[in-house]
């Protein structure tokens, strides 16, 4: 099961990987190990302890809680968000913080934001960073969202911070959308991003998060960001870039050089795979009782002394 006798370092790493792999297949769930931009799938159960041992810190991504949605397949999106938070709270390794990648609410209503704020207080994490989804900026261009959940660094709402050697960038790609277009970053935000990254060494691991996918997942359904390619030109020189998005309520990945893109599950309801339905509305045709297998949270661990981040997917079921 494990290459205990590996003497050289690289063999030891290989052995450890095999060990993880062997243990991994024993249970449900998927662990994504990223090394130098290459993504490897492993199973999840039983790994938490091992991962925790050499991780310097971890954080959890949640997304698309859609508070206010009340139809099939999930008439109680508050309960499933609560279950997601309970799952996070139950982990032996406490995340340093949470990221919510947007669509906190369904219709940007004050009472929906109230409910979301109340539920998030159940999270046993010191802080949650938010970026808005298009559902959070209806009617007021996000004024209420930014007032409640903004970092207030830049007038446009975007921000960055450094956490234990990793540079995090929260981008806004759901405002000033154009007819027929996708998500949009805009010239001001791109100029800021270029400047924000300019002083960093290429060895700095970078995590970029925004609501809409920052690569073109499926143009027919508008799943992309008009000017994300420009942002990628600033990110390409870094050894490890992870781009975390929400919006499409399912996991999709893409590797482009050293940049790996991930979309997250929703805590509320699934959406169909690209092109597998007439439209990207809520996926209702799911087996009774199986909703929770479509919902989940994502944990990202930073491994001490390495550029790689380990991305773990966890379903609610």
């Amino acid at each position, binding site marked *: 099961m494990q290459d205990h006798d590996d003497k050289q370092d690289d063999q030891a790493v290989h052995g450890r990987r095999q060990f993880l792999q062997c243990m991994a297949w024993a249970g449900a769930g998927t662990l994504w190990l990223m090394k130098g931009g290459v993504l490897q799938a492993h199973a999840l159960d039983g790994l938490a302890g091992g991962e925790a041992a050499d991780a310097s810190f971890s954080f959890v991504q949640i997304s698309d809680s859609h508070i206010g949605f009340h139809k099939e397949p999930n008439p109680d999106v508050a309960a499933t968000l609560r279950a997601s938070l309970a799952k996070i709270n139950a982990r032996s390794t406490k995340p340093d913080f949470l990221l919510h990648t947007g669509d906190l609410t369904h219709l940007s209503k004050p009472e929906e934001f109230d409910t979301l704020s109340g539920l998030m207080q159940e999270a046993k994490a010191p802080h949650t960073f938010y970026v808005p989804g298009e*559902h959070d900026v209806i009617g007021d261009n996000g004024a209420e969202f930014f007032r409640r959940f903004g970092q207030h660094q830049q007038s446009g709402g975007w921000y960055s911070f450094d956490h234990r050697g990793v540079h995090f960038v929260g981008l806004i790609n759901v405002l000033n959308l*154009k*007819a*027929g277009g996708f998500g949009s970053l805009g010239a001001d935000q791109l100029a800021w991003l270029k400047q924000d990254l300019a002083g960093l060494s290429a060895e700095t691991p970078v995590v970029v998060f925004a609501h809409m996918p920052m690569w073109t997942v499926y143009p027919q359904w508008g799943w992309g960001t008009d000017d994300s390619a420009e942002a990628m030109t600033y990110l390409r020189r870094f050894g490890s870039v992870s781009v975390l998005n929400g919006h499409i309520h399912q996991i999709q990945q893409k590797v482009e050089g050293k940049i790996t893109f991930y979309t997250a599950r929703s805590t509320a309801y699934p959406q169909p795979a690209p092109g597998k339905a007439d439209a990207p509305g809520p996926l*209702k045709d799911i087996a009774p009782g199986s909703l929770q297998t479509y919902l989940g949270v994502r944990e990202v661990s930073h491994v001490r002394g390495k550029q790689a981040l380990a991305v773990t997917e966890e379903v609610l079921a």
Partner: protein
Amino acid sequence: MSGARAWWRALALGVAALGAGSAAAAGKPAQAKVEIKHFAFVPEALTVSAGTRVVWTNRDDEPHIVVSAGNRFASSKAMDTDETYATVFDKPGTYAYFCSIHPHMVGTIIVR
């Protein structure tokens, strides 16, 4: 007909207040419908005569918003399932619009 045209031309010149009163006085304005279904405006292009009240109805489980490209008519609020939005198009022209939540959804109202 030419009389009506001249009347609408007067409206287009900016006699908006008179227009509102006159349309009401003339009785119910003509009405046309756009259905929002499967993340699309149906019909995608709708041609109406000036003074027509256009009514959008959202048949999706997702909310949608009608937003004028270039802000040429008032935008709707978020429409939940089966909610409607209506506005009267007084001036001839081509009005492109989209859903600001799902901007790949586009439509056009052509007012003659």
